[in-house]
């Protein structure tokens, strides 16, 4: 089993464990259109590196990532490494999720990540890419605390690393 598959399975387990917190049939469901028609869970949290080349005109093409492909790549890279392409994809994919108002999906993902498997660069970038939606993310305060704690455990000044978004 690859690390990405492990993470996927782990996330899925946590999702079921946290299900009572998110009542898919009533109040939280009313917050976002996506919950009214929930897609299969694996579509929400796919960590596979799904991507396809898209013609963007002007003779250029770029890779369009589907789902949260960055997560599998970040886990495979490990907690001590980063690369700029991956950070750029984190911004792009989180932005796309916000654009589609997938707040429940994001909230679950952020709160359920195995932070110690991800590099500090990824942690900081994930939060900088999503902070604009914090009023829509019910577990944001808890999520922030988990991220801060993970950074502090690595000897990083979390207050400074996350300035502007706390």
């Amino acid at each position: 089993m690859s690390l990405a598959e492990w993470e996927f399975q782990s996330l899925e387990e946590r999702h079921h464990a946290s299900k009572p917190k998110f009542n898919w049939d009533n109040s939280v469901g009313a917050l976002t259109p996506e919950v009214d028609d929930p897609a299969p869970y694996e579509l929400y949290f796919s960590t596979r590196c799904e991507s396809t080349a898209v013609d963007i005109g002007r003779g250029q093409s770029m890779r369009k990532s589907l789902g949260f492909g960055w997560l599998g790549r970040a886990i495979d890279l490990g907690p001590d490494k980063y690369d700029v392409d991956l950070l750029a994809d984190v911004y792009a994919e989180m932005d796309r999720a916000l654009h589609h108002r997938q707040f429940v999906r994001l909230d679950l993902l952020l709160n359920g990540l195995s932070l110690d498997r991800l590099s500090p660069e990824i942690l900081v970038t994930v939060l900088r890419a999503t902070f604009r939606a914090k009023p829509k993310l019910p577990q944001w305060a808890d999520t922030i605390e988990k991220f801060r704690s993970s950074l502090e455990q690595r000897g990083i000044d979390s207050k400074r690393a996350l300035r502007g978004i706390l």
Partner: protein
Amino acid sequence: MGWLHLSTDMPPSRAEFVGVAIKTTIPERQQRHVALVYRKTGADDPRISHLCWHETFRDESWAGDMAWLEIADLANDALNSRSLVGFLHRLRMGNPLVPYGFMDQGCLFRVDDVSGRIEFVTADAQLGLTCASFITCVFRSIGLDIVDEPTWPAERPGDAEFRKFIIDELGKSAKTSRRAKEISVEKFDVRIRPEDVASAAAQGDWPVQFDQAKAIASEIVAELDEMRNPPRSAVGLVEL
């Protein structure tokens, strides 16, 4: 020199290096241009990311024609420098069409779901960015406000002339004349000048208030002027 490195000095070869580059473009109008300078990795050449003109965003190799300074707030903050470089790389890959304008409140960068490109989104046709507000918008997008805009004066001497000059220039080209009609001399947000951005970048306590920015901005302008017109002794040294 105090704040600025000469354009001939190569920015440091650190992966997390991010700086601000500035130059005087039209000396008689005291018009300047500002850009972000960064390295994707330590092995890559430095690049500049900037808004040159209406719908003319560029991310290009460092040409060595601008003075520069390292962003003080990020100098000892590799995590946020790297995250910012990730954001700039995303802009580079998306090559967004950014309109020029004097009002920027509500402007944001967003990924288009169909094309996968990053777009610049405005709620109003009059909204757009200058070279300086492009930089403040980039930082705002990742949660870092570098300037405290409410502390800036609503209008300073020269601002109205600047807007009129820009609209006149936009009107001269068939490609941009429509934009000249969309934006107005009368509708504007506070103007953050290129030297204000450079000044904020030189300081480590963000967001920088106008009074803090003003003094260093003046010194940066003086340095740029000196680079254009070096004192006679310095000219002699260069010639030697």
